[in-house]
């Protein structure tokens, strides 16, 4: 038997069943786990099973799920809430969307199991308004589950009630942070608050609230069905199970993949991903979105798990994995992420609001060729301050793209500053177009197409580009049939 690199646990039903038909879900064992919990297990048993499975939060932090449930179960209140975080705002990540669209019942079932375990009767799914298809399918799934008595009152004829409602996000990345998410559900600006109190003590409407990510929930039913000892055999010592990654960027095979924890980046990129497009050279892989970092060739054989990625200067994040080739400028990539952070920072705490803006300005200066060597130390110092002093996870991780590119691609920063060159040829301000005199036949095609009249020369004589006037649009290069125009 061939050994497959991928194992489908979370994505088990995605693409196999019709997600709008609950019977197809049930035929694939949906709600079996919930039945088992309610009829054969006590809430403590459920929590024990999840703890033993070693499941850790898939939203990015990697907090042990069983422990989270246990804390919420021990806080007594007249009402508790189970919240599913489906605010997948991480650019370049789409695994939660696929689970919600492809197997909505897995999430509903897991939320009910969690409700049973911690003593909550109400579930809320906080979902991005940008995912209309997922919203539609969730609504259908909730209605069907109610109809079949798998949600609602007296589930499986027991005394356990559980109802699920949807709450919509409105486009704010910071709402992926649990305290922000809770404020947003309350109809407020999605700004984080200091923890403690943790949501498990004081969450939605001031009641104990357990927040888990979509993928975390999707692991729960199968753990109950097959047992913790089945699940914790998959993966590495401290990270159990599988992880879904959204593999994108410059690889041949893009899309969702699900691999056991401990698979190496090389296996993911070169075996599953089929290598780099157009035979180019691998340069870096970015994991963890705006909170993560860029890993290089030397990290390719590192087994992927929560702790190894953090040790390498990146993080698991929600599972976006963007592959870059030699044409991507790493200073620009860092700037791209900072641009995102600056826009998405909620503005509540100053290290994040002002610090990230300053980082962005420094990076912009460097990509324009106006940087000085001292800027590199400034970037590093400021990054560390932002990491140490920001209020929530957004600010505490936002300098990671800068720090990891500084560590791994220091020479590229230096090239921008000292030589005024972008080695990848991506930074427009540092590019210059030249005509190679030997190749130029003087056909005048380039001069005619130039929108600003920067190219001069006599007919049948080599032409010349005035770089003072040139706007670097590239029109001349496209038009030239003799490969006489190059970028330096």
């Amino acid at each position, binding site marked *: 038997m061939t050994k497959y690199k991928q194992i489908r646990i979370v994505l088990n039903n995605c693409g196999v069943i019709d997600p709008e038909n609950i019977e197809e879900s049930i035929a694939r064992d949906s709600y079996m786990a919930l039945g088992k919990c309610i009829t054969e297990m006590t809430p403590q048993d459920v929590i024990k099973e999840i703890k033993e499975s070693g499941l850790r939060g898939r939203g990015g932090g990697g907090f042990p799920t069983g422990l989270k449930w246990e804390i919420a179960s021990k806080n007594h209140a007249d009402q508790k809430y189970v919240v599913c975080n489906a605010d*997948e*705002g*991480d*650019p*370049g*990540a*789409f695994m939660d*969307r*696929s689970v919600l669209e492809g197997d909505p019942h897995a999430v509903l079932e897991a939320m009910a199991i969690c409700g049973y375990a911690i003593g909550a009767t109400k579930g809320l799914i906080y979902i991005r*308004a*940008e*995912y209309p298809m997922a919203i539609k399918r969730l609504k259908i799934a909730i209605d069907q589950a109610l109809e079949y008595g798998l949600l609602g009152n007296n589930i499986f004829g027991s005394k356990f009630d559980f109802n699920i409602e949807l*709450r*919509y*996000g*409105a*486009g*704010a*990345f910071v709402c992926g942070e649990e305290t922000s998410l809770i404020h*947003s*559900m*309350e*109809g*407020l*600006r*999605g700004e984080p608050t200091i923890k403690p109190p943790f949501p498990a003590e004081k969450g939605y*409407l001031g009641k104990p609230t357990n927040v888990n990510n979509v993928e975390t929930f999707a692991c729960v039913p199968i753990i109950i069905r097959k047992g913790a000892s089945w699940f914790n055999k998959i993966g590495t010592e401290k990270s159990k199970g599988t992880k879904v990654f*959204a593999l*994108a*960027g*410059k690889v041949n095979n*893009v*899309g969702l993949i699900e691999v056991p924890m401990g698979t190496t980046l090389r296996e993911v990129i070169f075996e599953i991903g089929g290598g780099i497009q157009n035979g180019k050279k691998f340069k870096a892989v*970015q994991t963890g*979105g705006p909170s993560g970092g860029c890993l290089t060739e030397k990290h390719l054989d590192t087994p992927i798990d929560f702790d190894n990625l953090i040790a390498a200067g990146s993080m698991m994040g929600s599972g*976006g994995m*963007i592959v*870059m080739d030699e044409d*991507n400028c790493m200073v620009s*990539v860092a700037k*791209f*992420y900072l641009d*995102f952070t600056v826009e998405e920072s*909620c503005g509540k705490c100053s290290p994040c609001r002002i610090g990230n803006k300053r980082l962005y300005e420094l990076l912009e200066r460097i990509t324009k060729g106006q940087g000085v060597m001292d800027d590199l130390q400034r970037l590093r110092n400021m990054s560390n301050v932002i990491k140490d002093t920001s209020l929530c996870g957004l600010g505490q991780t936002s300098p990671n793209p800068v720090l990891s590119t500084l560590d791994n691609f220091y020479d590229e920063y230096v090239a921008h500053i000292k030589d005024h060159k972008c080695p990848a040829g991506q930074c427009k301000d540092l590019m210059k177009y030249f005509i190679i005199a030997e190749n130029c036949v003087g056909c005048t095609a380039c001069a005619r197409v130039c929108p600003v009249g920067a190219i001069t020369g006599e007919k049948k004589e080599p032409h010349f580009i005035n770089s003072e006037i040139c706007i670097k649009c590239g029109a001349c290069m496209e038009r030239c049939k003799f490969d006489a125009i190059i970028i330096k």
Partner: protein
Amino acid sequence: MSRIKVKIKEKDLNIIKEICKSFNNEQGELINVLHKTQEHFGYLPAEIQEVVAKELEMSVAKVYGVVTFYSFFTMKPKGKFPISICTGTACYVRGAENVLGEFKRQLNIEVGETTPDGKFSLSCLRCVGACGLAPVVLVGDKTYGRVSPEGVKDILAEYNDK
């Protein structure tokens, strides 16, 4: 900053009231109310926010605070065919910036603006979760994948006589 003053018609006033009522005029439902209201009117000018604030018995400042916090809400009317360019990481790595530049050039507007004839508006959004199709452009509800700067002309041409 100049702003178009909007006069709310009696009929529209009732629609907003209806929407608020359908959520029991609860302050906690503000975001849902705004979603529904924007769905109906296309945008949320200050005048509409004032009505919502009054109905939910909260300050206009609070409503305004929420509207401006979330990128999904807009205070400017969008074009008949709103164009959104995904600038998520996967799209960025595959050249979304050049595609955006070409849209700006062809339409002669900046991001966040609408063409003078009200036909197209241009915005950027972060990841529609279709990274396999990067770079992605949305026109209304229609998705275009693997868009190149050269393909921009063809996309716009589809809406020529609409």
